[in-house]
């Protein structure tokens, strides 16, 4: 055992540390880890030694104890040598390990774990820094660069808002940063932007085409990528829309209502416009009309629109010219939910017994909510006033049935009080 210890001590006499504080700290932590590793086997040994003391044959146990210690130190030495071979800076490693080894051997002798007392004394070089009490001049004070408190990595933009000019200006514009930071990659994209070179020109461009200032927050909250689009592209798209005889006011209102509009290429926009014109057999003027009223049509996918048109034609049984009329009146139907559309049509046509031509006349009905329509119809039916045939007296137009608010519906159509209507709803 002594020989192995001596070996270890020999190996331990390495050169003194000549590294900076940080590196010594690193090694110190490594030493601590080592101690943790070696603690477990020493416990085992001390436990066995206690058990040995209780037995009567002391000599035998002593022998066993010695054997164990020898075995342990041998194994530790083996462990150390393998470690040393692996490590690049072998000497430091072995030195720290010796320290750990010593601490681990001590408790086995007096059967008590006192590792805290065994500090590894490392001589540290003094760091070349001026004293904190020294006086410095104002210029020096200014020249001291204070590292910014911005965290290098963060999950939220909250840490950067007060430091970044772009972000604070965006907040003042009314951009919902909380919504944006939930999208992947948008947060870092916004942080990289420079307000004066990236953001300001695009905002000025939007202002030039007539978008109101109050809409900037809405547009950027929904489409932050407009800030990375090149100005030429934006200009080209606006020019394209203007070349298709959209007036500048229309373009401005379209851009402010459909923020993604200007992020799509001219080819794609042209494609969309052509699709609506051909599918619905619309004149150029009417196409412009529906697109100006619902600019979202140019942004979304065309598949659901095609599907809705097929549903209207095949499932609901409208004629082509009827569909054209309905879409011109309510373009929103093109992007409506297919299931809801059939549900409400089923109710109007099969329960309320309203024929197709009347529905075509009041297409707003298809845009209303099923629940609202159902409770109103049932209330009128309960009162005996559900009469939707224009040729008979007491005719109730579908338009008024759907669009009137509850109070006027009760007073004008149902001739009942609002409380009665609400009570009736509890009986459905």
């Amino acid at each position: 055992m002594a020989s192995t210890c001596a070996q270890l001590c020999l190996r331990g006499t390495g050169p003194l540390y000549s590294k900076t504080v940080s590196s010594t700290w690193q090694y110190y932590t490594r030493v601590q880890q080592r101690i943790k590793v070696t603690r477990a086997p020493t416990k085992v040994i001390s436990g066995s030694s206690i058990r040995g003391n209780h037995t009567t044959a002391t000599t035998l146990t002593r022998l066993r104890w010695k054997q164990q210690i020898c075995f342990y130190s041998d194994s530790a030495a083996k462990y150390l040598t393998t470690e040393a071979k692996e490590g690049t800076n072998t000497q430091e490693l072995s030195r720290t390990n010796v320290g750990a080894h010593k601490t681990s051997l001590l408790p086995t002798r007096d059967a008590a774990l006192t590792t805290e007392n065994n500090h590894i004394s490392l001589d540290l070089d003094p760091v070349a820094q001026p004293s904190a009490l020294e006086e410095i001049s104002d210029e020096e004070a200014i020249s001291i660069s204070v590292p910014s408190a911005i965290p290098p990595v963060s999950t939220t933009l909250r840490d950067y808002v007060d430091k970044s000019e772009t972000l604070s200006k965006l907040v003042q514009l009314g951009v919902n940063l909380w919504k944006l930071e939930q999208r992947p990659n948008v947060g870092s994209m916004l942080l990289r932007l420079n307000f004066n070179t990236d953001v300001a020109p695009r905002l000025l461009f939007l202002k030039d085409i007539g978008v109101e200032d109050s809409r900037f927050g809405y547009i950027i909250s929904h489409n932050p990528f407009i800030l990375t689009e090149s100005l030429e592209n934006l200009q080209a798209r606006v020019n394209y829309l203007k070349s298709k005889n959209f007036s500048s006011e229309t373009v401005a209102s379209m851009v402010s209502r459909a923020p993604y509009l200007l992020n799509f290429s001219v080819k794609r926009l042209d494609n969309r416009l052509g699709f609506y014109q051909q599918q619905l057999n619309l004149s150029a003027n009417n196409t412009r009309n529906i697109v100006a009223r619902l600019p979202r049509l140019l942004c979304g996918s065309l598949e659901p629109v095609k599907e809705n048109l097929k549903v209207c034609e095949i499932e609901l049984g409208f004629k082509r010219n009827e569909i054209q009329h309905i879409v011109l009146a309510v373009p929103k139907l093109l992007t409506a939910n297919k299931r809801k559309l059939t549900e409400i049509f089923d109710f109007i046509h099969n329960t309320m017994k309203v024929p197709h031509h009347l529905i075509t006349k009041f297409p707003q009905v298809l845009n209303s909510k099923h629940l609202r329509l159902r409770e109103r119809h049932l209330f009128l039916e309960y009162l005996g006033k559900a009469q939707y045939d224009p040729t008979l007296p007491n005719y109730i137009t579908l338009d008024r049935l759907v669009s009137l608010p509850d109070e006027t519906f009760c007073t004008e159509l149902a001739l009942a009080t609002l409380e009665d209507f609400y009570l009736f709803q509890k009986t459905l």
Partner: protein
Amino acid sequence: MATPAIRMFRKLEGLFCVYKPAGVHWKLVRDSIETNLLKGLNAAPSPPLPHHVRLLTQPNNESETSKGLTVSTVSVPVLSKHPLVTGPEFQHIRVGVGHRLDAFSSGVLVLAVGNGNKALNDFYSTRVTRDYTLEAEFGTATDNFTHTGRVVERSTYDHITQDKLERVLSMLEGVNQKTLLTYSNIDMRSQEAYEMAVQGLLGPEGKSTPILTGLRCIRFQPPNFTLELQCLNETQKYLCKIVHEIGLELRSTAVCKGVRRTRDGLFTLQDALIHHHWTAADVMQAIQLYHSTKKNKKRSKAANKTSALQTSEDNITETQQSEVNEGRFAE
């Protein structure tokens, strides 16, 4: 240091009930209530932004005064606390749902907000009965026992009279009474069982098969009829099945056209909010009402106890008097 939104939320915690329309899933009801409450809570005014002082050096002065740099102090709002940056104060609220109602049925649905979820558990750990109204029709049988299902069988119903229907209903009630006794874990021959039965406290503890405690026909216009029933541990599917079985028992068939819950424990139709009133303000009002009724109940209970003591004393004196009277009569 509670913000107005938190103070408002404290007022919102509790139980209330809504009227679920037919054809809407209960999850949708819960979600729309939650979004409406969130909208109301986040509309509450947010506290003003805190200010912090920043030192700004002025670059144009630098060349002139090499020694003394002018540093101006500016107080700027801390933007990291701005609602646009932090997001709304409340992002989700715990809204719990009481005994479920399936999409087909309508009626009173109990909901709990925040701490009310605990009260909701306590509420259902007591044995609560629920009232239902079933609209039914003779003549057809469908695969899911409701009128929306695929028709499996058609039959005649001319032979059914109200008398026959009532007989079947009373038989069903009797069968259910028996199951009620089997599920109450008490020896039927004990004095304890007798006393509980006298007070009407017998019943299942926790889970059991659905049990109808009351059943009667309130409208009989063949082929349509309406049933009113009270039950424990039921599902709406089971109630539709009851209608189907009544039809079979009458040598005909019947389907359920509507299930409507009119009471759930102490929540009745009067308190239920219809879907126009699913806003934070209305919900808050309903919850305040619930709390106030709870307080009143406690108070009235306490009052009842004292009055009961008094009446028992009165009874004693009365009985003594009657004894005296009897004594006189005997004379």
